[in-house]
């Protein structure tokens, strides 16, 4: 488990925080992250973050599910034990395809949904039993915090950074250690 110290600035409004981040950035301070009680649209552009590729992962999981279901149905119904049900024998996958579509679809959705959810939990490091890692309890209620690393802002001293944060309309500035890596 690796821990690192960061400087935090707290705001009591989302618009104030975005204005604060922009003000800090204009002075050359790099803001690495922000914590909020709800999703704020446009925050990723302000922080210069790339959009997640999790949807692409979901598509691949879906394709995996589709392939698996085709292989399984083909093996069980066509190859291993072809049955003649009501005069409609199972000798060809293609001719029986319409009846197989529902399960192919359901299994695709099952794999895409769960695969994406598992990826989401691991990427966010939100798993049962992990400790809370938000800088202040109020950031899940009505406060907003920005996170600044001293080592990413070598042009400024720690006091200068704290002063600049305080000037941007914060309600509190503090330093805190947080877990950055579990393994």
């Amino acid at each position, binding site marked *: 488990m690796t821990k690192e110290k960061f400087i935090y600035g707290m705001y009591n409004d*989302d*618009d*104030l925080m975005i204005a604060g981040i922009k003000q800090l950035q204009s002075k050359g301070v790099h803001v690495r*992250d*922000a*914590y*909020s*009680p*709800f*999703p*704020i*649209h446009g*925050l*990723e552009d302000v*922080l210069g*973050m790339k*959009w*997640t590729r999790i*949807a692409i992962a*979901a598509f691949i999981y879906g394709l995996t599910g589709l392939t698996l279901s085709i292989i*399984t*149905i083909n093996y*069980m*119904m066509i190859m*291993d*034990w072809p049955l003649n049900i009501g005069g409609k024998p*199972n000798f060809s996958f293609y001719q*029986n395809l319409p*009846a*197989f579509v*529902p*399960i192919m*679809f*359901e*299994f695709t*959705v*099952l794999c*895409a*949904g*769960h695969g*994406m*959810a598992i990826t*989401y*939990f691991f*990427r*966010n*490091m*939100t*798993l049962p*039993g*992990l*400790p*809370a*890692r*938000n800088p202040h309890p109020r*950031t*899940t*209620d*009505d406060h907003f915090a920005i*996170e600044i690393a001293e080592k990413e802002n070598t042009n400024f001293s720690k006091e200068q950074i704290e002063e600049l944060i305080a000037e941007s309309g914060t309600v509190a500035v503090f330093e805190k250690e947080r877990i950055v890596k579990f393994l």
Partner: protein
Amino acid sequence: MVKEAEVREPLILGKDVTYHSITEDVCRPIEGKAGKLWWLLFSVAVVLAIWGTGMILYTIGRGIGVWGLNNTIDWAWDITNFVWWVGIGHAGTLISAVLLLFRQKWRMAINRSAEAMTIFAVIMAALFPGIHMGRIWLAYFVFPIPNQFGSLWVNFNSPLLWDVFAISTYFSVSFVFWYIGLIPDFATIRDRAKGPIAKKVYSMLSFGWTGNAMAWIRFEEVSLVLAGLATPLVFSVHSIVSMDFATSVIPGWHTTIFPPYFVAGAVFSGFAMVQTLLLVIRKVLHYEKYITIQHIEMMNRIITVTGSIVGVAYLSELFISWYSGVEYEGYAFLNRATGPYWWAYFIMMTANVVSPQLFWFKKLRTSLTFSFFLSIIVNIGMWFERFVIIVTSLHRDYIPSNWSMFHPTFVDIGIYLGTIGIFFTLFLGFTRFFPVLALNELKSILKSSGEAYRGKDTGH
């Protein structure tokens, strides 16, 4: 900040609502003590649940001979309940997924409880095919696993197997969707919790949620994609349920209109159940600010639309049974309306086709008492719809010597009441330990759709 047109009614009422007051309002039932009304409802639900569990165990112990089924009517009360519960479940997914894709902001105050309802309703639904198997300990036979008799597989051509896949996918994906939305709200409760047990439990449930920018980006993306996946899923589930009937050769079941007709009926009955639950939640937990008259009206509009679709389906079924020239089909429908079960058909027609039309009057669709009353009527009507479809189609066979009537036993009725009890036990438990309103979503629309921010310039 994207602002909404001022002519739109605000979705969050009250001039003094802030982010913090939303947190306070939502956490109040979790952190406080339950009121008398809650205990009263909970006790009734638990009594019913215990009675129902007893009846289920009795069925498993004695076999399904204790039900009112006979050689002619081999599907009746239990499958009616199954279809009824699955149908109810559909509204939750429709609200959270379809309305998310359509960017309907009014869904945010109601989606959490509607999704909870979905999950509990699907659990209740899955119970019925399970116990109808008779030997429930052999339930693993429905999964495609090699069994001890050699490589005898399940039949992938059968709608009953499609059902197994559809219901289990639907349940698990809905559950994941619901839980992903709950995690940030559990984190809010965790960060406010005072007692050591509450802190520990909500820490566990919130998975160590941080709420940093990247986590929210992923959250939004996952919600959107899961909504996109759940939308075709919800339509497929009830279509497949309807195919359990439609692919058979029983007159009255063998119709191609079944899938869309069942889906519309499912949404109709589900919205009625959501309406019933919402009106109770609104009253008991004092959420008038968040669940406004506008929300109730929107729900009523959807009830009217889907109720009308159901009405059109009933009438087209009748027309086609005559127009097709198939005498068995014609008889099945004539028998429904004028045979010994005419009263069930009459209840179905009145409750599902006539009663939602009353919502064309604005006065009625904005009246809380009337909405509550009508939501109950629709629930009853939709139960009778399934009863009519299942029992009246079966009870008069091709051979008149097979004709029979269905008489439910106390076990049939007991299990049905029991599932209502278990459902409400779970749901009332949910209102005490879970955030009933989606905290993070409500906060995200406060500035654009809240009355407190109307007419204010909030910068940029």
